[in-house]
């Protein structure tokens, strides 16, 4: 009798455990949003393209430096991309380039964007910061994301064209531009 009760108790506990853990957590929301795989793929390719570019390769270590600031992605897609993620798409590319020798070889200086400067300057004390202390950038690394979106009863697809640019701030000239593309699709009804 005792054994039977024990076995029944263990079985009930097992059944509850199976039912609770059976599906391995809540279902994943399906979207055509860009994800980390896209981020890594795109920034790796864009960093390579930037480093290989003729205008940048032609620069020498003795040239006048290009002081490069960054600006978050300008989002023209039909998806909401939070501001922190819009910085991420540029920040990872700069980080990849900064890990190489390109800055020394091509005389590039990466500077923090103005949005981050107040946090850094706080250490100096507002009264002690000389006006215009932060270097003036000569160039800006930025990106524009566009999409062609189709939605229908069958689902949704988004063709992304993510174009990265190095802009000369004196002339507005696009010194370098390249793009990365992906098409993402979902079928069935979505909550995008």
């Amino acid at each position, binding site marked *: 009798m005792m054994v039977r009760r024990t076995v029944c108790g263990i079985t009930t506990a097992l059944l509850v455990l199976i039912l609770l853990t059976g599906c391995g957590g809540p279902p994943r929301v399906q979207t055509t949003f860009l994800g980390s795989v896209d981020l890594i793929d795109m920034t790796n390719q864009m960093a390579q393209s930037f480093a290989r570019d003729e205008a940048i390769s032609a620069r020498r270590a003795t040239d006048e430096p290009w002081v490069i600031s960054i600006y978050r992605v300008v989002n023209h897609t039909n998806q909401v991309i939070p501001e922190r993620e819009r910085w991420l798409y540029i920040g990872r590319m700069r980080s990849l380039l900064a890990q190489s020798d390109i800055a020394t070889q091509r005389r590039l200086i990466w500077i923090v964007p103005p949005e981050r400067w107040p946090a850094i300057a706080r250490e100096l004390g507002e009264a002690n910061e000389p006006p215009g202390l932060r270097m003036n950038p000569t160039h800006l690394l930025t990106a*524009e994301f566009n999409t062609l979106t189709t939605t229908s009863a069958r689902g949704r697809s988004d063709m992304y064209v993510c174009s990265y640019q190095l802009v000369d701030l004196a002339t507005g000239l696009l010194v370098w531009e390249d793009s990365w*593309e992906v098409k993402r699709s979902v079928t*069935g009804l979505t909550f995008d």
Partner: protein
Amino acid sequence: MKFSSTIRQVAGLTLIAGTVSLAACQTPPPNRGTSGYRMDPSSDSPAEYGVMTPRSADLIEATNKMAQDIAQRLDITNRQSPPRIFVGLIENKSSQRHQNFQVFLARLRAELNSSGARHGLEFIRERSFVEDQRSREYGSKDPASTAAAYQSRADYVLTCEVYDLPSGGTNYFLLNYQLVQLRDAATGPDVGAGAIVWENSYEVKFQ
């Protein structure tokens, strides 16, 4: 004997519960569809079957065709005096007013800038963007670098008009790409302000 019968009952119950639990996992949650996946941009997604607006395959075909044409036009692409161009806003004159077709210009610029054509063309960002960035980066600390001090050097605008003609369950689309001269040009083919110095089109019909 009794004990072995209990074990059999318990095993049976466990099997049933496991089957029910696994079967529940097989059933997709309602209104969720299948996973968002990457696909070849030159082919149609299920969402695009039967939809009568330009798709990603049209985007690729149209912009590749325009880039190739501009690159071949020696009166436009000029290594000695590359025309300075900014990319304007798309003019959507189709019945699909909600559709955002700006990507048809953005991809063309990116294609031209990442190909050999870039040696004969110079692309400049639009004035509002450069002014905003100069204001953000420089503020007013250096009068020569302020937003107000910026003078756009663009001599041409690359633009595109989108038209359509829906009729009897079909729809015809025309994308008219143009390079328009802005003023007496210091670069490129100097025809005169307002002159369309290059034009080409892409057309597609959906039925």
